[in-house]
């Protein structure tokens, strides 16, 4: 058998390359080397199976489509507000928001809540409301407003107005949570209030808008 004849039948010889023409192989180093190389390529090829990983975006898209088509049928959630599932792209927001909430929570706790010198009025219905006209701003809020005024003077009043609204929210939420520490809804109010304050600070300090 010649090398040309051998190579002509080589494609038909099967995956495991059991060679019936082994007499030719024993005598021909070139064809023997060829068969060895092809076997090695085939063997290495098998090792490539399933070694790449798609980006997390792929599953996100599949999940959205499955929900849209009604193939995912979730059990009803419980009454508590669950944090939304965040994709890998926005997961950094969770620790950033948590850090902001903790920071403001500690700040306010150390200050004992809203400053004691604030005057408070009671409405005729006996409901306590904050007098937003006379309450002083916490010093860190004043610093923030000064920073805003220095960079974008036209925005200072808007920030002051919104900080006051948020501080009132935090005060009411703290009171509610203190009245009943086991009240999950009150805890939710408090988290929301801190989230609002963190957002105001984040927007005020956004250097990209300088």
């Amino acid at each position, binding site marked *: 058998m010649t090398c040309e004849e051998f190579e002509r039948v080589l494609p038909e010889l099967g995956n495991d390359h059991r060679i019936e023409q082994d007499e030719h192989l024993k005598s021909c180093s070139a064809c023997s080397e060829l068969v060895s190389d092809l076997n090695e390529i085939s063997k290495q090829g098998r090792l490539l199976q399933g070694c790449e990983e798609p980006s997390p975006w792929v599953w996100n898209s599949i999940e959205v489509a499955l929900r*849209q088509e009604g193939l995912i049928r979730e059990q*009803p959630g419980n009454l508590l507000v669950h944090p*939304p599932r965040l994709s890998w792209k926005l997961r950094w927001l969770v620790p950033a928001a948590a850090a902001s909430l903790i920071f403001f929570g500690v700040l306010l706790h150390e200050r004992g809540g809203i400053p004691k010198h604030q005057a408070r009025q009671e409405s005729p219905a006996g409901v306590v409301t904050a007098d937003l006209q006379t309450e002083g701003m916490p010093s860190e809020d004043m610093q923030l407003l000064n920073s805003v005024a220095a960079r*974008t003077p036209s925005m200072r009043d808007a920030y002051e107005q919104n900080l006051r609204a948020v501080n009132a929210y935090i005060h*009411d939420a703290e009171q509610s949570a203190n009245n009943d520490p086991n009240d999950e809804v009150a805890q939710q109010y408090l988290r929301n209030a801190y989230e609002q304050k963190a957002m105001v600070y984040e927007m005020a300090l956004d250097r990209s808008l300088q």
Partner: protein
Amino acid sequence: MYRKQRIATVSVVMIIIVAALAAAETTRKEMHFKVGRRANISIVNLYGPISVKPGIGKHVSVTATSYSGKVEIDQSKRGNRVAVVSHLLQRADSDSGRVDYEVVVPMDANVTLHTATGPLHIEKLHGDLLLEGSTANVDVRDVSAGRVHVKTLNGPVTLTNVNDAYVEITSVSGDVSLHQVNGASVHVNSSSGKIHYDGEFGEGGQYSLTSHSGDIEAIAPSYASIEVVARSVQGRVDNDFPLQPEHTSFVTRSGSAFAGTVGQAASSVNLLSFSGKIHLKKREQ
């Protein structure tokens, strides 16, 4: 007669000169970028509107119109990230620093918009959207299959026809209006702004509308499938739906808190306000 004609002529000439001067200051800059899938587009513009619409193909085009020489438009592209920034010079104010943006992006692009005054407008995209505007009016419509994250101080926020999305809106005193917004998670957090929802509460999602003093009005169809909790510490709470009671530790109190299920309770709905009014309304068919 002659005097009147002369005055008219001088007036016309003055108008032409002023218009020419104004036009000379108006600069229109067009930028084009080729991008890949799910490109990240960021526009930072302190003063002025930004409008984002979808285009065909993997191409981003940004048209920036400025009205004075006190603002420069900086652009950069790194890989699949495009950033355009309005850079204010020489103590520019809200008039001289204003830039109007019209942006066309691929439908799957992720878009981030930062502004102080806006307004911001986005429509018909499928990517992740992050919009921040202090006093900006934010309008998002016909968006699906992405994340919509909006933050304003007192800018009103309107979302229309947003589906299959994760929605998170935080506004201190801006009113928030959601029309046909459905998704796996819809979360609105307001201090004094009003929250208005008119939709299905669909897709088996988790809906949370919370405020400090802003009123909350939620309108849903009679066939809504929800598990609802509503409470206002100091405000009035009303409900148009007949609710099936649920075994829960949540304390219902007529006029200020209710909880229960409607239909199959596929979605969960939390309506919480500290001192605002809450009303869960049934949509008129």
